[in-house]
Every structure is written in C-alpha cells, then in structure tokens.
C-alpha cells in the first residue's frame, strides 16, 4: 500500500461527498406545452369528433409527486366524497369504471372543470402543478402508473391478502377476493 494508494482512496471518499442528491421539489410543467386539454370524455360526445386523450401525465413516474398528490387528496377534501379511493358520495377511483376517462388529461380536465352530479370545478383554485400531482395519485390508486413510482396501494385499500402484480406497469385488473 503506497502513499499514492491512500491518497486515491481519500480523494474518492472526499469527492464522493460532492455529489449531493438533487431532487427538485417543485417542477412546474410548462403550461405552454400543455394547453388546457379539451378531451373526449365518452363515446356519446356531441359535435365533431375529438381526438382521444393520449400521453402520460407529467408526474406519472415521479414518486415524490404521487405522495404529494396523496397529501393534497386529503387536504383538499377529495376524500370527502371519494373516500380513500373506495368511493362514497362520489364514485370509486380504484375500480375499472372511469365515467370520464382514465387518461391523465381526462382526470385533469375532470378536476379543473368539474362534472355533473356533484364534482365541483377546482379550476382557478388548485394550481396547475398540484392538479397534476393529484392526477398522478388518482392514477396510482387505479394502478395506472409504473410500479417503480408507486409500488403498492396503501394498506388500508386492501381488504385481505395483497394481490400480486407481475411486472412494472402491470395493471391490477383482478379484484381481490373479499373474505366476507
């Protein structure tokens, strides 16, 4: 072991400290790139045919934003009607049935514009970036985001044994067996 060897190890140890984990906490999606979506909600849409909503949401693969979305989902009182995804006064968000579409643009439009029979419009109140975080969390509840970003549903969403998923991005489409 020479002095050079020791110096090299020291240099590696010291320089290693320089690389700090960078995680920009608030990344605003540029609003120019994402115009307020006009999206097709159902097959029974009047007027000229609209393009199907496509594309991922800006935060679908961002674990931090999904957890921020979860916080906002409670704080902005989405839980008041949708409970923790199981539904109540409002429709469930963890099942297969999406009345107004499950694409990120659809959910975003639903939050901002509101929907008939009770869903209020949050446009102008919830900032764009937070709305996209909530979109990411709602899609995570429906298992529509990659597993790397949201490894599992919360414990309280399971009724029994947690169903196994087989791969990244796998959508859980078999409902868990209810023991009762």
């Amino acid at each position, binding site marked *: 072991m020479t002095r050079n060897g020791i110096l090299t190890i020291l240099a590696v140890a010291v320089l290693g400290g320089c690389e700090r984990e960078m995680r920009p*906490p*608030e990344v605003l999606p540029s609003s120019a790139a994402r115009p307020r979506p006009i999206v097709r909600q159902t097959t029974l849409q009047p007027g000229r045919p609209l393009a199907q909503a496509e594309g991922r949401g800006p935060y679908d693969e961002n674990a931090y934003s999904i957890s921020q979305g979860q*916080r906002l989902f409670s*704080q*902005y009182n989405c839980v008041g009607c949708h409970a923790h995804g199981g539904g109540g006064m409002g429709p469930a968000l963890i099942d297969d049935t999406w009345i107004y579409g499950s694409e990120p643009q659809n959910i975003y439009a639903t939050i901002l514009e509101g929907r008939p029979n009770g869903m209020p419009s949050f446009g*102008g*109140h*919830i*900032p764009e*970036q937070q709305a996209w975080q909530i979109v990411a969390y709602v899609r995570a509840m429906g298992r529509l985001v990659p597993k790397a970003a949201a490894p599992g549903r919360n414990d309280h969403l399971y009724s029994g044994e947690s169903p196994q998923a087989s791969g990244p991005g796998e959508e859980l489409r078999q409902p868990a067996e209810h023991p009762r």
Partner: protein
Amino acid sequence: MNALAFLAGSGFAGRQSALNPAGPQAGRIEDLWWLMFWVCTAVFVLVMLFFIAGMVRGRRARKERGVEAPMSVEPGVERRMMRTIVAAVAATVITLFGLLVASVATGRSISPLRVPEDALTVKVIGHQWWWDFEYQHPEPYRIIRSPNELHIPVGQPVRILTTSADVIHSFWVPNLHGKLDLIPGRTADTWIQADRPGVYRGQCAEFCGHQHAHMGFLVIAEPPERFAAWWERQRQPAPEPATPLQQRGRQVFLSQACPLCHTIQGTDAGSRVGPDLTHLASRRTLAAGTLPNTRGHLGGWIADPQSTKPGNLMPPNPMKSEDLQALLAYLESLR
C-alpha cells in the same frame, strides 16, 4: 443571507441564547451549563499540564540515557505509575458522578410537576415547516390560534402541550427552557415562564426535513394586561375591507388557491392546512421566522414561496400585478 441580515439588523443577539436566561428554568439550565463549562475547562487544563510535563520529562530522560537505550522499569517506578493511574480513574469517576448529580438535580428542579392547574395552556402543533399555537380555554369561543408567534404573560407559568401534524419536531426556546419533542399522535407537556418582558426566538431542534433550519418562531413576553388585550384582539374576526382596493384584494384571496389552505375568520376561507391569516399583519415575521413581515417580502413570498423556502408546501401563485397589489393591500389590513 436574508435571514442573517434580518437577524443582525433587528438586534436578535442574545434573543436565542441559553446563556441569557429570561425564566426560572433557563436560569437553572444556565447554572448547570457554567458548572459543566468550568469543570471541563479545569479538566482540560490539568490534562494538558500533565501531558506537557510527561513530554518534557521523557525527552530529558532520553537525552540522559541516549536514544537507543531501552527503558528500564524498576519496581518502585511501576508502583508509582499504578498509583497515578488509580488516582486519575478515581478523579474521573468522581467528577463525572458530580456532574451527573448536578444534572439530575437541575432536571428535578425544572420538572413539570410544579405548574398550577389553572395555568394558561397553549397547545403547540408542529407542521412542516411552521408552528401553530392554539390557546386553550374552557369557553370554546375564546380559543385562538397564533401561528409562529407565542405571546405569554410575564411572571406566570404557562403550560405547553406539544404534538405534531406530520413528523417529529422539537420545541426549543433557549432563553426560557430546554427542548421538548413534538411527536405525531402523542401529547407531551411542559411549562415555561418568562420573568422579564421581551422577544425571544425559538427554533425547531429536531431535524424535520428540507426546511428544518427555517422553522423558527418568536416568543413575545408582555405584561399580563397587554397579553389579555392581545388575546382579545386575536379573537376578533378579520376587519372588513375599508377601501375598494382592499375589497378587490379579498375577492382575489377568495378566488385564487389561497382559501384551499388558509383561514381568514369572517370570510368563507376556513381551511386548516396552512397558517391562519386572520391577523397576519399583526405578526412580526413571515414564513416561520424566516422573513420580516413587510410588503415586499409578503409579495415575494406569495408569488414564489419556493425561492425562499425550497420544498415548502405552498405552491407558487402567479397572478396579475394589479391583483397582487390588491391582495397585499387586503392582507396588510388584517391587524
């Protein structure tokens, strides 16, 4: 830099210092601090004296014997060495035991057993990254919330109940008392007392995330009559806007994202996610002791809180300049 300049400019020296006690408990803690300081200083000086003496004597002995000669250990020398070691160990144990006794005695003298039942009670709720002080009262209409500013009457013990809304924080006002952790889901209690009026700074003392360092608050100790008047003012709803600009400001407040998180008593905004803004203009600081409460800082904070406290939970609020000016005029009227 801002915060430093602010602290220096407003004369905060000694306002967050355990060596400038303003209450009975801090006084005891200061006594213990000085006891430990002098004992440790004496130990350090003694150790250094022995160390230097040993070096000098060893050097002299080597010179007499020649460098290569082996050191001879005679039975007499060995006995002396043994006696020295035993004496040193005994001195260490006795010193540490003495400090332990002093420490326990200090702890007992400031234990929470001595607070009267009818004392003023304030519930401290820690949030990432601000403080909520909820003044308890048997009559619910007299309960008030005072974010980031704890007013207490001078010369009276105040019971402090602590809990947290998210992660573990720690309540620490060095001029008044030691630290007490805020544990989510649990309530701990202690008491504080200020014997002379003044403004003391408190700080979160348990690492709680990105902006832990910017989680400060002020304790304002004032004579009981002024404290009672303050409480009475805080209990009032926000004043009605007096000018058209302020009226527009209230409209802006209610139509933007603000009411999703903030409360202004007397309006429809009633959310408890962020600090209560009913008496925002009466407070000395913004963003939990981070900025002085001036119009410029308030405007900058509303427009882009992330540049002042990156990672905090308030989103940027882009709005038209006239709207922002109206909003500022309204918020500044909330005394």
